[in-house]
């Protein structure tokens, strides 16, 4: 039995619901020697800024129980090199390319999206308003509803392509931020970005990261991600993309049942470059085993006590 795996995010139709998360899959072809990225529903490329960024001082990563902290600092080649050197590598791939962008100001987000929107190989945008590693205080646009609204407005006016806004969990009321993003024109939301975290070496009394705090990812944050997705799902009717500690098809199913239309696989790529395609095959097996012909029919089927 063939399973129809396709899902719709705004005007973007994905052939299957498994994407790779920004910052964990490079510019899309780095893992090509392990598998064909065309197998995936889509690739979210590494966050791009207007100017190239070298990234933060070392150490940038630390391991924590079932998780990792990172403080990479959005190291990237900048939008011009992204267009001339990175996007052409994705020509011919049969998968959606979602360009992830971040700016220093709301206007800069608009400039980035304007620069990229006309390019055929960019199928959609993910707006990173939630990286905890850029400002020293770990703050981000996505921690404030008004700032979120400003960014999304600037982006929305520059493109008709699907705009996905990536939310941070490091807020008191994620629904307020989510609502601001949708009201300003977001087609979909992806959540969560990393959880602000920290670890200390008890021998040296030094933080394990040079920037002291960083973003926690991996299995440790999956329950947080699910709860955030659930909160947003209860309040808003837009497509949601689940992110956070997805390591198995079972993990992904938890997000789909809770209401995610697609998932992004992140940290797993570092441990098993084939992890995202393993999850995809697991989802296919799940559907086949239960006679489910349309994957989208399982979305949001969480059973709650009435």
């Amino acid at each position: 039995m063939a399973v129809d795996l396709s899902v719709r995010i705004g005007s973007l139709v994905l052939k299957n619901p498994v994407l790779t998360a920004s910052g964990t899959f490079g510019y899309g072809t780095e893992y090509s020697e392990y598998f064909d990225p065309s197998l995936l529903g889509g690739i979210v490329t590494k966050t791009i800024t207007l100017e190239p960024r070298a990234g933060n001082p070392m150490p940038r990563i630390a391991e924590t129980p079932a998780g990792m902290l990172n403080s990479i600092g959005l190291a990237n080649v900048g939008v011009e090199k992204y267009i001339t050197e990175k996007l052409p590598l994705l020509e011919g791939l049969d998968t959606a390319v979602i360009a992830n962008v971040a700016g220093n100001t709301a206007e800069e987000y608009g400039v980035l999206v304007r620069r990229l929107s006309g390019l055929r190989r960019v199928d959609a945008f993910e707006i990173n308003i939630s990286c905890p590693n850029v400002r020293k205080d770990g703050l981000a646009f996505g921690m404030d509803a008004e700032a979120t609204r400003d960014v999304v407005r600037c982006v929305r006016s520059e493109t008709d392509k699907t705009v996905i806004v990536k939310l941070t969990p490091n807020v008191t009321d994620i629904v307020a931020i989510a609502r601001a993003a949708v009201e300003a024109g977001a087609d979909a939301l992806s959540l969560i970005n990393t959880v602000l975290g920290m670890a200390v070496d008890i021998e040296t009394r030094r933080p394990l990261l040079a920037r002291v705090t960083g973003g926690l990812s991996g299995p440790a944050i999956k329950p947080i991600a699910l709860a955030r997705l659930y909160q947003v799902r209860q309040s808003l009717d837009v497509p949601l993309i689940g992110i956070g500690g997805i390591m198995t098809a079972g993990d992904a199913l938890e997000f789909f049942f809770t209401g995610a239309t697609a998932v992004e696989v992140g940290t797993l790529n570092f441990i098993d470059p084939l992890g995202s395609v393993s999850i995809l095959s697991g989802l296919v097996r799940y559907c086949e085993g239960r006679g489910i012909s349309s994957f989208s029919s399982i979305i949001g089927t969480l059973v709650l006590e009435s």
Partner: protein
Amino acid sequence: MKTRIASCPIISQESITDRIQRLVLHCPEIAGAAKPGQFVHVRVHPSWDPLLRRPFSVHAADRKNGSIALLYRVIGKGTAFLRSLGNGASVNLMGPLGNGFRLDQSRSRALVMAGGLGSAPAFFLIDRLLEYGRPVIFMWGTRSAEEIFGLDRFRVAGVEIHLATDDGSLGRAGTVTGLLEAFLRESKSLKNLEGFVCGPEPMLAAVQALVAGKPLRVQACLEERMACGTGVCQGCAVRMQSGLYRMVCSDGPVFPIEEVDFGG
């Protein structure tokens, strides 16, 4: 050369000291492809805690038997679990990764320096240098005599060996950089000599300072915490003298020593 992800059976595992293990694995493709200075990324534990793979330098590669040897220090939960695995158990490896030492057609003497577990890549390097028929001088510093091992075959092959231990229990008391300092003082000429160094960053920094301005080309093999091991996560950056960051995993782990900014 394609990188492999493979589940590799353990051929043998032995304790060198109470903390240092030597692990031999059957993985013909990696054994055939590996070059000195390259590493394999080891899934030390099958669960998600510990989460990340650990990069281990290839310590030996036997193309005929299709095996590689790794050397590791037992530090935490992951390496303790790895030590508990017996023959027949399998370990998931990715590799070979990174760029090895550049070994050209030079016939010059090779000066190989290793600090602590820098012996992991250094032994493999010496094996290959000897295969190429190059004269080798090996300087090795460890904490104490019990961490010195496996030198017989190098002695038989005519390698000139200089040892140092922190506690003075074998060789010169002090570090391997002390050996280098004495060597540089006593050498009339550094012509026809090429340096290779593997070890922790403070040692590499000391070697960099000692050879600065001298006509001695040195390649350094860096150690760094890594997540992906393939250049994707940008976690294992090292600052270069140029001010740019390079990735230890994918741009290195071997760099010309003068290009690295050990202060950054």
